């Protein structure tokens, strides 16, 4: 099976869907002439031309709103944010318009639109460029939120997202764009809202999405050396969340650590932790633990950044806490 980088997998998904459906187009900052700020849309201008690969000014409110209007009026926009950190100046268009207009109109209006781009921290970029927004967008009814961790998932989920017919937040990571993985040549789709067991194990369930999946894998390798076998579940979609898959795993392992690149208050781990205690209380042999960012903005200094960012060591500690092996 061919190996593709994460960024290439996203490009292939967009290319295939644009070849299939004339209504699909891509707009965003530097997506055309510059070939994409992170080269995700490399070559797409050449293939599809400036009518369908559209450079925007730095005007997130304006072009997000234009995407919303275009979706209402028969198109399928893919709106790229250079990062979701920049979506905030246009976020009213996503939260009030994309997410609510169908409901407020009593179902008259369709809203097939994808907002995609890198999310969360990518090294020493300072506090305003490092936020994980998946829990924030998941708060709002009317949005589906996807945060893939591997090229295979990214391609299959993005293709499903483009065909879904609803407002979708699709999250990537600058630090994952170069990550390689096997991606089949033949076409495939991955259903939105279905998680996947990425590593099997009997001792503890780790739930980790996006970049955190890779940190969780490192921790699992280390723990295996101590004889602790982790089962890693990648939800892949944050909303709707595949809680059943997590609960099934906990019924087997009886222990759970949630790994989440959000801040602790109201992060993904908060909600998932609540669901686990309610739905799997009788199966738990230890309180659920979580590894998250601290309730602190991203620092710049390397040493502080390393302290701030969740690492394998913290996951190992949390696993030892739930397995009482400290």
């Amino acid at each position: 099976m061919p190996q593709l980088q994460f960024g290439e997998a996203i490009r292939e998904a967009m290319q295939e869907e644009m070849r299939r459906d004339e209504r699909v187009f891509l707009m965003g900052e530097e997506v055309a002439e510059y070939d994409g700020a992170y080269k995700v849309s490399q070559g797409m201008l050449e293939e599809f031309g400036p009518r369908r690969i559209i450079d925007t000014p730095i005007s997130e409110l304006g072009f997000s709103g234009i995407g919303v209007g275009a979706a209402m009026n028969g198109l399928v926009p893919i709106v790229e944010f250079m990062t979701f950190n920049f979506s905030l100046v246009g976020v009213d268009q996503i939260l009030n318009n994309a997410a609510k207009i169908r409901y407020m109109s009593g179902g008259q209006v369709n809203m097939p639109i994808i907002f995609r781009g890198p999310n969360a921290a990518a090294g020493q970029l300072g506090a305003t460029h490092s936020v994980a927004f998946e829990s924030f967008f998941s708060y709002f009814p009317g949005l589906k939120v996807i945060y893939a961790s591997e090229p295979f998932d990214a391609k299959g989920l993005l293709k499903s997202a483009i065909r879904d017919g609803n407002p979708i937040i699709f999250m990537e990571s600058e630090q994952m764009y170069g990550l390689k993985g096997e991606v089949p040549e033949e076409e495939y789709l991955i259903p939105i809202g279905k998680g996947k067991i990425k590593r099997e194990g009997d001792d503890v369930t780790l739930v980790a999405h996006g970049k955190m999946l890779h940190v969780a894998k490192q921790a699992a390798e280390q723990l295996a050396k101590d004889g602790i076998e982790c089962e890693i579940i990648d939800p892949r979609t944050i909303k709707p969340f595949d809680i059943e898959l997590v609960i099934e795993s906990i019924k087997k392992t009886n222990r759970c650590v949630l790994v989440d690149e959000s801040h602790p208050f109201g992060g993904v781990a908060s909600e998932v932790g609540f669901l686990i205690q309610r739905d799997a209380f009788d199966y738990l042999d230890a309180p659920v633990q979580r590894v998250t960012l601290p309730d602190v903005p991203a620092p710049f200094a390397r040493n502080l950044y390393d302290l701030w960012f969740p690492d394998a060591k913290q996951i190992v500690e949390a696993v030892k806490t739930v397995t009482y092996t400290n």
Partner: protein
Amino acid sequence: MTKKAEKSFTPTGFVYKSTTLPEATKKDHKKLGLTNDDVIALFREMFLQRRFEERAAQMYQKGKFGGFLHLYIGQEAISSATNFVLQDDDDIITAYRDHGFGLVRGISAKAGMAELFGKATGCSNGKGGSMHFFNADRHFWGGHGIVGAHIPVGAGLAFANKYLDNGRISISFFGDGAVDQGALHEAFNLAQLWKLPAIFVVENNGYSMGTAVERHTAAEIYKRALAYDMKYEIVNGMDLFSMIEKLQEVAKDVRDNSIPYFLEIRTYRYKGHSMSDPGNYRTKEELDEFKAIDPIERLKTYMLDKKVLKQDEIDSIMDEVNKEVLDAIDFAEESDFPAEEELYKHIFSGDELVIHDHK
């Protein structure tokens, strides 16, 4: 000696004159290409909007429904002229003062009143309310409650029309309060940059809620267009024929040349911002001055002068509209509220119910 700098911010304690109307057109309906029947139909439609809202206000005051109620009374020439001039499949979007546009774009008095009452038979199934009338089949895209936020959406409607090369244009209405929002500037920049076939219309009724134009915006509103090299016009919104004349020119230019256009329509709302408005930011004299040029009353006089209709014929149209609105109230009262399961519908398209933690 330098002039002493003004120390206060938004000045208070002085009532401003809200707006100055440009002269109305001298052309009569025939010169504008309207038949007598067109004029009669436009009169009926404007009066329907007026009567619908007068009755809606009564029902609100009687406590028949809750929420907000922003009345369009005084501004009806704008919605009627727009619908008359544009093609049926051109796209219209407006802000929360939206009943008039809904009624001219195919929402029946019954479906409109039922929406105000929050009933299942309403134009948005009772889920939108006064501020969110929609009729997507007739290219009426709402009804939007966040000031200025629908202006880029209106540009997006035009983007799709240009992308699909379907010959349609969009027209986006917003109040004078919306011109202070960044959304307007981003939409204007993109619309001009991409040459979108979009008409942007500020209905300058003199007040952003209770704040007079001179107290809320730093320059003449039409000048917003200058920064983006956008064509613009100032139009008398209290005069139906002036509106039709200008919109005919502008719609043709926008459609033929795929360009955006900015219209500052000067108009006046006779009622408050919403039902809780004390109105003490304006004078009775100003209100009377504008009531004296009521577009509906003047159209009646015009029809009599031009012998389009006799008084008894006008009266019979008004009786008919009165009855239509009273029937709408009965319909709204008798209609059912949405079924409880409706709470969970219309969030996403598709058959599957995708609702977090919902059993």
